[in-house]
């Protein structure tokens, strides 16, 4: 609370500037009046003097009087009002005295005493008036006693009347004057008080204005969207950020409702939230979708609170929200990464398990047959020894191949040639050429579809994919008399991707084996050649290219179709 500036009220004899000014003005006016009155008398006096009616001394006195009044008036104008203030009552007093002396106590000249007292009170204050009264009474009664030419008893009524009259007049004047002074002081104090109060109020208003300006610029420069709505849901405020979010000016928002700014289903939801907030009086904190009309959806965190006036009544809602799409996206990406990592971990676990299992198998064979070999040697079974050694050789050979293929599998994704756009047909032709011997030996016809699209990837690896799939098809032709492999493509539901297929008319697959065929070292037929790495390799290569591989078959002896997807252009991941 600022200090109140209070002017001290006029007390005692101390005269305020205002008092001084008032007295100066009065003095000047009275002197002027006296001067004018004197001027009225100038002509008859001059004429009277010239005709000998007035003696010269009297004329000179009057002239001197005029000069005194004029001088006082001039001084008063210059700011020295006190000589005039003394002069005016003094002149009146002298006039009264003059009349009383020359004409007698009961003359009407005593009126001048009254005027003198009145002027003294007015110009010099009540105290001066009372002093003058004492002087008047003493002098006048003194004159009266000196010049008393009638018995005191006869003059007594006149003396009493005179004394009482002047006393009464003085009291009335004193009373009136003090009343006026009081009223003036009161008026002045009221005025002072009002002035102070107004000054204070102006100051407070200015301070409030300043703090409001601070709040306003704070809200306007916040990076959050801020708005408020009335009870009916009309916008009553929107900060710059909110205007920018909605793509409208503040005038296009204030007075509007959510239905004017947002899709109906969102407007409905916002309105329900508003009602909930206003009914409960509680602040809510939610994550939701936001969509200005004609713009894209995004995720926001919203805090909605009731708008409360000075009396505690709820007059609407206040909302603050900010875009959390990036945070959500980051969280989503993190979750995806975790899921991917978990899948990879599981795959790795399976891989380790499979590898340890499958590498152990030839070891058991080798050690086992070494034992049997020893037995055979002791028993002299040379024919069996040959077979045992053969098995040991084959087991070591299988182990070598397993290790080679494991190494190969681990290289995919780690060591890759720079991806580029390649004609899929070229890939297929190269793979089929590499398998030419095998295909001819089994008499397999390969049909390659025309107009195959281009794909984006590592050429060498993609050749491996086709090579493995065709090799697999040849292996599982069974007793098919007219083995045939068809390679083609069709449009995928996923835009930018193409589904390729390698179809055979071999032994086919049962549904429970669809997933298994891609497992490492999983062989559906114990007698089939190979290590069970081929299709695992295909899966790995396709996945590294961002695609998917699956198998379909109408059942045993119905043939098998392997499908996989590849992108035509670089993937944006």
């Amino acid at each position, binding site marked *: 609370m600022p200090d109140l500036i209070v002017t001290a009220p006029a007390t005692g004899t101390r005269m305020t500037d205002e008092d001084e000014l008032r007295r100066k003005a009065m003095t000047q006016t009275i002197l002027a009046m006296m001067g004018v009155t004197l001027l009225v008398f100038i002509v008859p006096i001059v004429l009277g003097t010239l005709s000998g009616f007035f003696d010269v001394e009297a004329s000179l006195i009057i002239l001197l009087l005029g000069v005194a009044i004029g001088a006082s008036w001039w001084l008063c104008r210059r700011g020295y009002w006190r000589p005039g203030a003394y002069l005016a009552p003094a002149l009146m007093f002298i006039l009264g005295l003059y009349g009383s002396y020359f004409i007698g106590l009961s003359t009407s000249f005593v009126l001048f005493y009254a005027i003198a007292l009145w002027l003294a009170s007015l110009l010099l204050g009540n105290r001066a008036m009372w002093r003058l009264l004492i002087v008047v009474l003493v002098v006048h009664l003194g004159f009266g006693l000196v010049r008393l030419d009638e018995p005191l008893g006869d003059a007594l009524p006149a003396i009493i009347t005179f004394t009482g009259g002047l006393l009464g007049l003085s009291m009335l004047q004193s009373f009136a004057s003090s009343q006026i002074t009081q009223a003036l002081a009161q008026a002045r104090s009221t005025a002072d008080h009002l002035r102070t109060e107004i000054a204070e109020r102006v100051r407070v208003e200015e301070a409030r204005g300043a703090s409001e300006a601070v709040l306003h610029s704070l809200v306007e420069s916040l990076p959050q969207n801020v708005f408020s709505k009335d009870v009916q849901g009309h916008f009553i405020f929107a900060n710059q950020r909110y205007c920018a979010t909605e793509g409208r000016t503040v005038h296009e928002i204030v007075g509007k409702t959510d239905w004017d700014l947002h899709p109906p289903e969102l407007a409905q939801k916002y309105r329900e939230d508003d009602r909930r907030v206003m009914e409960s009086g509680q602040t809510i904190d939610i994550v939701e979708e936001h969509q200005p009309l004609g713009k894209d959806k995004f995720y926001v965190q919203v805090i909605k609170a009731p708008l409360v006036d000075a009396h505690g009544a709820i007059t609407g809602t206040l909302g603050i929200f900010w875009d959390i799409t990036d945070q959500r996206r980051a969280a989503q990406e993190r979750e995806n990464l975790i899921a991917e990592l978990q899948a990879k971990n599981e795959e790795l676990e399976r891989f380790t*398990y499979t590898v340890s299992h499958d590498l*152990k*198998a030839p070891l058991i064979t080798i050690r086992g047959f070494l034992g049997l070999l*020893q037995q055979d040697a002791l028993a002299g079974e040379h024919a069996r020894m040959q077979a045992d050694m053969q*098995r040991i050789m084959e087991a070591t050979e299988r182990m070598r191949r397993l290790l080679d293929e494991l190494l190969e599998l681990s290289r995919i994704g780690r060591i890759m040639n720079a991806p580029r756009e390649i004609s899929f047909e070229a890939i297929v032709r190269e793979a089929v050429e590499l398998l030419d011997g095998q295909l001819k030996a089994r008499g397999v016809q390969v049909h390659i579809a025309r107009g195959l699209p281009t794909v984006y990837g590592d050429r060498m690896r993609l050749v491996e994919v086709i090579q493995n799939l065709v090799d697999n098809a040849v292996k599982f032709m069974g007793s098919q008399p007219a083995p045939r492999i068809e390679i083609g493509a069709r449009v995928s539901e996923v835009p930018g991707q193409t589904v390729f297929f390698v179809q055979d008319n071999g032994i086919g697959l049962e549904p429970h084996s669809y997933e298994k065929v891609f497992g490492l070292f999983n062989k*559906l037929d*114990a007698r089939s050649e190979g290590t069970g790495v081929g299709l695992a390799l295909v899966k790995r290569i396709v996945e590294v290219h961002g695609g998917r591989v699956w198998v379909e078959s109408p059942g045993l002896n119905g043939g098998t179709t392997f499908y996989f997807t590849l992108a035509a252009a670089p993937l944006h991941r």
Partner: protein
Amino acid sequence: MNGEPVLVMLVEDNIDHAELVMRTLAEHRVANRVRHFVDGQSALDYLYHRNAYTDVAQNPYPHVILLDLRLPRVDGLEVLKQIKDSDELKHIPVVILTTSEADRDVTRAYDHHVNSYLVKPVGYEEFSELMEDLGFYWLGWNTNPQL
């Protein structure tokens, strides 16, 4: 061994391991006859007398089944499950004989009421000893229900 032929069913996709098992079993004169199957499907066909095995007299139930876990077409665990779910077959002792020591495989095998779980030892002496003990235990000491 009451003079009747003792039949062991061996379900093993690894030909070398099958040979190893059969030769060590023969060496210890454990079984008169061993029937070897390379995948789960043919083993089940035999047990249910389907396809090539419809002749019940020619294809009697085995006294014990030695079953590998990782098998082509129908895997060992599925074979085990089908045997133990079948009223005709569930009394036949099934011994898992595998390279896998994984807890998951052991647990799942016992979940499906396997009678025994053996891990193939690396080393001829151990392998041979295991086969001998196995024969004595399941075909000697162990009493099977008379059906």
